[in-house]
């Protein structure tokens, strides 16, 4: 599709645009959804489109083209230009990255076997059966296969291509209405795909969660399963973006250089990580993706930036464009040195939360939020799981949670599913004195 990109770029420059970015996609995506141990629907998507971002004297316009003939391209660009000319400038726009750049192949991001995979239903059956073997009665979930081609051309000497694949599964197993567990597995190459582990984990937790008792409100030491903590960390993708900070959607407002997490915490965005679901060779302006440390030893080091925002704040881009809004590729919390058993043995009286959903903020800038455990949650006494509990809610403050991390597991898990849209790498995490509330009538 570079011929289309170049045609769009040429015409856009002729009309009088300044900075121009054309990002074209070809996508083949497949989904198999299942519930009650059977497939509910199987889907396939095919997209071919070009996203255009164009600037005229600091006036920014964008659109998405799905019809890619010369006439449509010309008409669209003329209309965009007319619109741009009538607008007021964005005073704090400072341009796009200057290419060319060199791109390195990132290992384990493309696998021809996934492209050629004819029929993924056997993986669904493996996941269902492994959950049933663990004691589940009903199994639901979703499997995806992905194949994307990305073509980027900009007016600043960028021409870049990336091709990626992926396969992933999310499995939720039920023993009864209120005893459930969840497991996921997301990879970029077929040989690393392990649907069985996702099914087993879902089944095991569901089995453990049978006959839950009502939980009690109070302050508890909480072990977050990677699935649960990934939900919270996925909000860092948005909250660490300089755009969200400016727009008042982040508790990190005004906190650069300040302590926002406990001393051991190192939180990164890694755009070029092998075998990670969010990995890409370059961002939306063509800057090669990189590893960016957002929080180092508890201190906020940087927001996520594109070139324009970086120039505004007199620093370098972190390769997270989004031309309007920078965002993370893969959020990565560095592991600690606790085994899972050691982590549990640290807890005298606490709760192990295996999954959460519906995280909502009362105040984004203050960071006050709550989130609801779903699937098995368990009371821990003297390092042992003593019983499953239900109907509780985590009600706390985001920064306080990060500051109260007391131990991290030594193994990282790659989490990406319906509730965790930016992929997250996190270990098991132990947090002191987490606020737990419950309904009272």
């Amino acid at each position: 599709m570079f011929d289309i990109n170049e045609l769009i770029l040429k015409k856009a420059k002729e009309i009088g645009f300044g900075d121009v970015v054309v990002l074209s996609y070809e996508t083949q995506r497949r989904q198999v959804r299942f519930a009650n141990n059977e497939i509910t629907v199987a889907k396939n998507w095919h997209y071919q489109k070009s996203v255009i971002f164009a600037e005229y004297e600091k006036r920014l316009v964008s659109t998405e083209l799905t019809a890619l003939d010369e006439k449509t391209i010309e008409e669209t660009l003329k209309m965009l230009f007319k619109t741009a000319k009538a607008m007021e400038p964005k005073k704090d726009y400072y341009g796009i990255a200057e290419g060319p750049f060199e791109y390195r192949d990132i290992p384990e991001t493309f696998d021809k076997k996934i492209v050629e995979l004819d029929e993924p239903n056997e993986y669904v059956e493996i996941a269902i059966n492994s959950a049933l073997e663990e004691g589940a009665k009903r199994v639901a979930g979703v499997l995806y296969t992905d194949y994307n081609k990305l073509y980027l051309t900009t007016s600043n000497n960028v021409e870049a291509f990336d091709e990626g694949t992926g396969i992933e599964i999310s499995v939720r197993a039920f023993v009864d209405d209120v005893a459930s567990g969840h497991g996921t597995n997301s990879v970029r190459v077929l040989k690393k795909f392990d649907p069985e582990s996702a099914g087993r984990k879902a089944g095991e937790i569901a089995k453990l969660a049978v006959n839950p008792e009502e939980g009690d409100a109070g302050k508890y030491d909480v072990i977050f399963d990677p699935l649960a903590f990934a939900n919270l960390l996925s909000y860092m993708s948005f909250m660490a973006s300089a755009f969200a900070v400016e727009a008042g959607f982040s508790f990190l407002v005004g906190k650069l250089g300040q302590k926002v997490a406990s001393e051991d915490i190192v939180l990164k965005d890694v755009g070029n990580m092998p075998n990670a679901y969010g990995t890409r060779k370059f961002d939306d302006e063509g800057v090669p993706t990189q590893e960016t440390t957002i929080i180092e030893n508890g201190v906020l080091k940087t927001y996520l930036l594109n070139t324009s925002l970086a120039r505004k704040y007199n620093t370098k881009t972190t390769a997270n464009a989004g031309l309007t809004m920078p965002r993370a590729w893969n959020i990565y919390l560095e592991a600690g040195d606790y085994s899972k058993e050691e982590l549990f043995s640290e807890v005298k009286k606490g709760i192990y939360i295996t999954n959460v959903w519906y995280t909502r903020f009362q105040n984004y800038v203050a960071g006050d939020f709550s989130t609801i455990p779903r699937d098995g949650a368990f009371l821990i006494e003297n390092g042992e799981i003593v019983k499953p509990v239900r109907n509780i809610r985590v009600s706390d403050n985001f920064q306080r949670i990060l500051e109260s991390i007391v131990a991290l597991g030594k193994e990282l898990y790659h989490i990406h599913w319906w509730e965790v849209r930016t992929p997250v790498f996190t270990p098991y995490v132990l947090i002191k004195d987490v606020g737990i509330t419950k309904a009272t009538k």
Partner: protein
Amino acid sequence: MHELVEFAVEKALELGAKYAEARFEEHSGVNIVMKNGNPEGLGIRADRGIGVRVLVNGGMGFASTNVLTKESVSEVVKKAVKLAKAASKVRNRPIEFSEERFHEVYYEVRMKKDFRDYSGEEKMEYLKLIEEEVLNSGVNVPMRFLSYQDWIAHKYFVNNEGAKVESVIPRVSITYNLVVFEEGQVEQAPFVKTSFTGGLELIEKAEPWKRALNDVKALQRLIKEGKKPPEGKVDVVISPEVAGIAVHESVGHPYEADRIFGREAAQAGESFVKPDMLGKRIGSEVVTVIEDPTIPNSWGFYLYDDEGVKARPRYLIKDGIITEFLMNREYAYYLGTHSNAAARAINYDREPIVRMANTYLAPGDYSFDELIEDVKLGVYMVSFNEWNIDDRRYQQRYIGREAYLIENGEIKHPVRRPILEITTKGLWSSVDAVGKEVEFYPGTCGKGEPGQGVPVWMGGASARLRDVVLRR
């Protein structure tokens, strides 16, 4: 385009589909974002494509493309049929659809002030009005995120059972996030929307800039004069906005038949409601909750759903009794009845699934003064920020943004963040009086995988809850 859609259905039947539908959608419109006074950019939306859904051997397949050639559509139909066949092998029982009467029909929503006739700069004026009101309010509002959005959805739906439904529906919406800093404290009104099906005249009549001014003044007053809310058992009067989120979360969602039967189990979850709860009491006699896609100019408006079934008002709760679930054809079949037209898809590339449209608490006969006149101690919750509910829709919580103390029948000072954390049955059983006036508030309801955020209205009348536990 019409031919291509009809071709897709014929082709699917030829390839062995027992049921086939094809839906063309074209969405065209404009997005404008302004942040802290700066225009961030203008996006033009021009998106179109065809989605095909089939049943083959009791399995369901769906495929879509945005390449609108006969070859490409033919390829898509083949994929859908192949996927359905393969899926049918991993099923315990075949998927069937309920019988319905279908129509050949065209409908559109007319705009008095057609947004296609106005430039981006003219639309930006609405955001500037919000800026002006807020900046001249005497309140310190350092962070202001404003956005304008309009689009026209042109759809053409055809199935092999006689449905041919074409519609043209314009939607227009303004959203803001305003962050107030006063006296070293921060409060915010996030994602506040004013949204309609129709033209710019509706935005101008609703005056979101006045609402923004009220919001920042209320937050300033909250910071300066706000006190702790009472704790423990009190009466709580909820506004139409709070009643709206409560009916949406704890009545609309758990009555979605696909949740009840477990299809959404791995995503949005299941439901505490079971099929045998039809006819059972869930709330007091004054509670009636209606779901109605046909309200003119509503954000959730449609007259035919995305399976071609004609829409009508649905009584989810009548006088406190569960009376009807939200259904598409698949789940209506399992329940041995007809669909009530709750199948919606956000675009050509999504399957239609069971959704709400406009959900509201039906009005009672109390004036607002009558609702509060015999409240000795309580809270009037006007708006909320944080809210959530468990995935069976039974344990919810709403935290007030703007809220006031009620003492001896009178509204007093603002109270900070009153927390109502309550079960669904507890909530609806506690209602002893419902107001006369109905208001609606727009939202984007999230469900489905991949996600399908659909426009909905939520609202209804104010309601009085007796003896509920309030926390702070």
